[in-house]
């Protein structure tokens, strides 16, 4: 069928089963927007900033596992989108970003709103394309969706010049992808798997070190199964929260810089570290040469470059985590596995001795309290997103996660401003269900993408934003206190907007609370009214995220709860 390039974009998205796109129009992408106006295949959500378009697409992808889509224009539209794209790249989130470009005749002349978009996105995308010919357009979009969602997922960027979207051509959408240079290794090597299983049988203190790959490959429940069948304890990275389920008796917490004592000690003492889709990030390992220093390493990852990038893998396995874990479960009966009960008991003792805790008060809300409270009220009905900072770590520590994809956070890049647009993407994905999307944020982070409250209210996406307000850029302030002799350079945020009025100005519900009772009332009201809301919670100003492993120290050198030992 003959049609314009712009129409081809719409038809291609339809063929890929896209149900929602997040976007922002502009000069170079107007032909595509004209076709968006005419179609009724998918919903278009107009964010109020291109960065938020991409992060909303991420929130949609992270909460569902489907590929998210964002459409932006050339030049400043595209450069605004870059932070979101880099965020998706660092956490391996499948999204496709379509950007407008100036006409091919203008490219290279510093034309109005021209920027070398593929040049800018190259280091932070899995792959990118500049469409030079209209006949390539359907194939490129097909490839983009394929690349984004297979192998190690990631963002794929397609830049389309305006004259290409205006041209008329034959629309032939390929039924399959033919890329001889792209063949991700899905199937594990059987010999490697056998050696790894033998190592497990011979281990005395094995430990499952579960990373974000467990969520990306949708194998959370298989990993729980594996842990149970082998009676092996497990710890999670920040990105893997929810995989094991916090109630699981074999789960010993999040590890790393702000990890639990039991988790970090488990990593310190294990003799066989079984890495499942984790990448040995420096926020997890602490001093690398002392991380799991007594252990051999089984390292399972779909991305060969992750293996032996930072640590020696004694038993490397390249392959899809889900297929590999399934094969491990099936192979258990062929091995005589040691009894690891003593090891599990030891970790239980650690956990009882040094549980995660904070000193609660009644006169002042401690920032951890609303997080626990929301966990108690909503349980597994909640989808939780966060911004970046102290509140993010407290949420990872204190929210009782029960299942994969319940937790949405910016791990690798640490993008302030992530929480609200990500939450609205998730809220769109679960619109009409009983899921409640809550964004825990800080008084610093929320102002970075506050304009998305408008998107929430326009599209009736009932995100509940809980602003834990300590009048500080809390995490930086914590480091200044601990490592810079309390010189609080530019982290005091005493000058602040009236958050309640700000919320109301965007046609959202607004609350300011400073007691537990007020919080309960406000939260109940927001949940019942099913409207986007912002609850400003005045919290204790100087609370710190503990425990903490100071930068450059090993995981067993933790600062535990202050004044309570």
């Amino acid at each position, binding site marked *: 069928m003959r049609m314009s390039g712009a129409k081809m974009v719409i038809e291609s998205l339809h063929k890929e089963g896209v149900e929602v796109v997040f976007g922002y129009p502009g000069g170079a992408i107007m032909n595509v927007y004209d076709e968006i106006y005419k179609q009724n295949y998918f919903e278009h959500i107009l964010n109020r900033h291109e960065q938020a378009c991409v992060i909303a697409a991420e929130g949609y992808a992270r909460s569902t596992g489907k590929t998210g889509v964002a459409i932006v224009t050339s030049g400043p539209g595209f450069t605004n989108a870059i932070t979101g794209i880099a965020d998706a790249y660092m956490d391996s989130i499948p999204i496709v970003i379509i950007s407008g470009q100036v006409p091919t005749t203008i490219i290279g002349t510093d034309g109005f709103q021209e920027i070398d978009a593929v040049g800018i996105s*190259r280091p932070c995308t899995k792959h990118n394309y500049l469409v030079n010919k209209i006949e390539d357009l359907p194939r490129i979009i097909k490839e983009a969706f394929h690349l984004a969602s297979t192998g190690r997922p990631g963002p794929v960027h397609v830049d389309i010049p305006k004259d290409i979207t205006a041209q008329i051509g034959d629309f032939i959408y390929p039924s399959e992808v033919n890329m001889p*240079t792209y063949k991700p290794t899905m199937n594990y090597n059987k010999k490697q798997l056998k050696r790894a299983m033998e190592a497990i049988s011979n281990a005395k203190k094995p430990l499952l070190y579960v990373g974000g790959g467990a969520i990306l490959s949708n194998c959370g429940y298989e990993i729980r199964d594996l842990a149970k069948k082998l009676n092996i304890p497990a710890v999670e990275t920040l990105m893997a929260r929810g995989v094991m389920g916090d109630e699981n008796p074999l789960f010993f917490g999040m590890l790393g810089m702000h990890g639990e004592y039991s988790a970090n000690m488990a990593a310190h003492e294990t003799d066989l570290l079984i890495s499942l889709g984790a990448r040995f990030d420096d926020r997890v390992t602490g001093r*690398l*040469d002392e*991380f799991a220093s007594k252990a*051999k390493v089984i390292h399972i990852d779909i*991305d060969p470059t992750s293996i*032996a990038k930072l640590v020696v893998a*004694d038993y490397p396995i390249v392959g899809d985590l889900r297929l590999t874990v399934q094969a491990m479960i099936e192979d258990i009966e062929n091995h005589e596995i040691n009894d690891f009960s003593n090891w599990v008991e030891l970790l239980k003792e650690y956990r009882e001795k040094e549980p995660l805790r904070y000193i609660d008060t009644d006169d002042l809300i401690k920032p951890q309290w609303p997080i626990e409270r929301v966990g108690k009220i909503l349980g597994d009905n909640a989808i939780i997103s966060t911004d970046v900072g102290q509140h993010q770590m407290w949420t990872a520590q204190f929210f009782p996660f029960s299942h994969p994809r319940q937790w949405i956070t910016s791990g690798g890049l640490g993008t302030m401003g992530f929480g609200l647009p990500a939450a609205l993407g998730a809220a769109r994905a679960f619109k009409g269900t009983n899921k409640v999307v809550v964004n825990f944020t800080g008084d610093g982070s929320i102002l970075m993408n506050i304009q998305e409250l408008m998107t929430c209210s326009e599209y009736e996406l009932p995100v509940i934003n809980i602003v834990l307000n300590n009048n500080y850029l809390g995490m930086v302030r914590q480091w200044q206190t601990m490592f810079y002799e309390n010189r609080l350079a530019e982290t005091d945020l005493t000058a602040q907007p009236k958050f309640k009025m700000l919320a109301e100005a965007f046609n959202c519900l607004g609350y300011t609370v400073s007691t537990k009772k007020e919080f309960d009332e406000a939260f109940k009201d927001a949940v019942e009214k099913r409207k986007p809301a912002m609850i400003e919670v005045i919290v204790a100003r100087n609370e710190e995220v503990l425990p903490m492993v100071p930068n450059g120290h090993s995981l067993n050198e933790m600062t535990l709860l202050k004044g309570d030992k």
Partner: protein
Amino acid sequence: MSNFNSYYNSETIRQVISVVVLNEHNVLSRIVGLFSARGYNIDSLTVAPMEDSPYSRMTIVTTGDKRVIDQIVKQLNKLIPVLKVNEHKNVIEKDTVLMKFSIDNNLADIDVIARAYHGAIQNVTHDSIIVSATDSSDRIINFIKVMEKFNPLEVVRSGIVAMER
């Protein structure tokens, strides 16, 4: 976990890598961008289309310890337009140099030395001559050193092409 540095021999090695890539725009910058973004060295890079195919071959000479070389090979393999990466062990390498000299030099001497390095005088004008030589990389370095006494006006090297024996 054994110490990472002792596991890999940390001695710096020189490695010739050939990369077969899809012959499309942007691919060179992807390769170069990979090296610059991750702090790897490129000592030499040559690229040309392959006969009767949609692919090009790049020959890259790099240096680093074994761990770095392993990562370079893996990262190259990860790039979408890369078909194949060869980590060469036993190769014939050739490097070409073009050198321009003033015509006032002793041309017979220049000619004799050039021949010793599989070279020859390529062009003569009324004020300069151009000599080329094609040989292994270290011999070309030597050749350039020897020829310095003739005060070369210009020196251009091709970078290395290599083929497994």
